[in-house]
């Protein structure tokens, strides 16, 4: 049974480690595979697991995760089924689950109902890419009440003033978007991420996870060396899981997870 997102980061920080957070889209290609994949990642060095709820209009996502969401929805993946599957899975997982979802499915269900349901299923964290600080107050408040941590995002375009406010309100950790752009694999991490990490570090002692664009071990190691508390890797996992048969995909993501973990644990 996993701890809260904050506690998980606290333990890693005590050991001087940078967390690895793989991302997968729920229901791609089906929920059985998603469950098996999460277990494999849990056993292959993932410290936290980010699970994307497939959405019809994922405007913060690049082609890989868009395609995964389309496949999941075409396969009939429903929100209730995702929550049920997570509920069955969480007791056996070491890594806390962070749910990634756009705002409309939350709003449509009702913010309190949604948060209570995912909390009951053992979800520990929540990331909502289209819910900036100004619109997040209700969710932040209720999340705190039910024991789910809502992590807010900081972007390269965020002003110092905004960064300070977001850092103050964000729960669990701060999600630093490494690039102006959508999710996806990129050949290099922009150098200004280093400055943003420094800036954030001066503002807050909350953990900072860097995501959007990290797809290779050396990139994960780079953000660690720049002071990140976590490297979040999405499209590179989603793409690997989707290639070949389910069994091949599961094998490949386990291997990739171990490679990334090793990179994060290597000497600077």
């Amino acid at each position, binding site marked *: 049974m996993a701890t809260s997102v904050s506690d998980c980061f606290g333990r890693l920080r005590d050991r001087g480690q940078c967390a690895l957070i793989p991302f997968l889209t729920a229901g791609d290609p089906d929920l059985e595979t998603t469950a098996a994949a999460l277990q494999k990642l849990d056993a292959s060095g993932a410290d936290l697991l980010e699970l994307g709820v497939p959405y019809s209009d994922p405007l913060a996502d690049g082609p890989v995760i868009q395609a995964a969401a389309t496949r999941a929805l075409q396969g009939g993946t429903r929100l209730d089924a995702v929550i049920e599957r997570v509920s069955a899975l969480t007791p056996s997982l070491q890594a806390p689950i962070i749910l990634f979802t756009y705002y409309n499915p939350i709003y449509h269900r009702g913010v309190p109902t949604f948060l209570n349901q995912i909390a009951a299923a053992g979800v520990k964290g929540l990331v909502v890419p289209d819910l900036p600080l*100004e619109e997040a107050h209700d969710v932040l408040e209720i999340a705190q009440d039910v024991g789910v941590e809502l992590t807010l995002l900081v972007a390269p375009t965020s002003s110092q003033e905004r960064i300070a406010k977001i850092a103050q309100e964000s729960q669990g950790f701060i999600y630093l978007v490494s690039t102006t752009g959508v999710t996806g694999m990129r050949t290099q991490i922009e150098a200004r991420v280093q400055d943003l990490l420094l800036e954030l570090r001066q503002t807050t002692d909350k953990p900072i996870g860097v995501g959007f664009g990290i797809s290779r071990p050396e990139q994960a190691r780079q953000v660690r060396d720049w002071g990140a508390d976590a490297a979040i890797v999405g499209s590179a996992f989603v793409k690997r899981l989707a290639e070949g048969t389910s069994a091949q995909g599961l094998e490949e993501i386990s291997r990739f997870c171990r490679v990334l973990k090793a990179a994060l644990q290597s000497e600077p």
Partner: protein
Amino acid sequence: MTYTPTKTDFPQVAQRPDPQGRFGAFGGKYVPETLMPALSELETAFAQYRQDSAFQQELDQLLKDYVGRPSPLYFAERLTTYYAHSDGSGPQIFLKREDLNHTGAHKINNALAQVLLARRMGKQRIIAETGAGQHGVATATVCARFGLKCVIYMGVHDMERQALNVFRMRLMGAEVCPVEAGTGTLKDATSEAIRDWVTNVETTHYILGSVAGPHPYPMMVRDFHGVIGQETRVQCQEKWGEPPDILLACVGGGSNAMGLFHEFLGDASVRMIGVEAAGEGIASGHHAATLTQGQVGVLHGAMSYLLQDEDGQVTEAHSISAGLDYPGVGPEHSYLKDLGRAEYYSVTDQEAVAAFERLAQLEGIIPALETSHAIAYLETLCPQLTGSPRIVLNCSGRGDKDVQTVAQYLTQEHESTL
């Protein structure tokens, strides 16, 4: 004229949106953090330049000399006769001729104003989404006029049914990017434009084409189209010395309707009617009747009525008119609907095509399929009216782009009745 408005005063209508970009519960800024600073920058620039006399002068001059404003308010005599009651009374129908604007629709009012704003903000690259292609053409046009790089996102399905407009955009030097995601229509094109903006926000201005999207777009686009209502007021005054009794406009995202309505929101005697697309019929499930059939949700940065399923997944809209084929609607329309200040109804593809033919035959004006929805609602509205109320219908666009779609539709209709 016996129509009595259900409410006599709408004081809260005047101060919208609030500083958070809210029209009551609707609107807001539901976008990735990356865009938040750009929205603030845009809000500041808009607030500054709308007061700036040099900006206003340049805009007014271009609206006059380049766009051809003011657009006429035309008395549709034969259409009026067509709907006359047996006693000779009946509604007097006037068309606000936005179809006579340069590029053939109201869309250029906003595209022109936003491009002037973008230049002052130092943005060299312009992006836009388009459904029917009218906003894309308007944007490509103003970019050509000012020598700016222009990228238009358009669904593959819409590129097929609005091929003429694709050609026009490319002719003027715009890059038209096909969007294959989803249904290949306006919703998907808008998502792709937002993704581009997230990626290139530091160099690019996004000319959003409707009163939709995150704050400040619904307010800004409304105000840039406000010239439609302002001219209408003056023209009504000149023609009969009073405001109109009824305003009628089609609603997809809702820009031409807001442009006409905004000026008259405080006139309690003016009835406002928006007409959505009922596609193949509400019961078929294949429609775009967001305000009449949707539930409140969030799409493309704003809270508004939305076509969605029980999981909050946005559902596919359907309309023969590419410009109305959108599962969302501008937040201010949602607000006006809930407030009871404006009424919203829907008409089917079939009714719209019939109205398309009717206006062509009675007035020698071929309207856009979008506009045809507003015209089609006269069939329902006119028999309900007593006396001779004056209706101003926003003739938002011309139908040259739609002749192929209509020809195809009529052929299919004809074959299915054989």
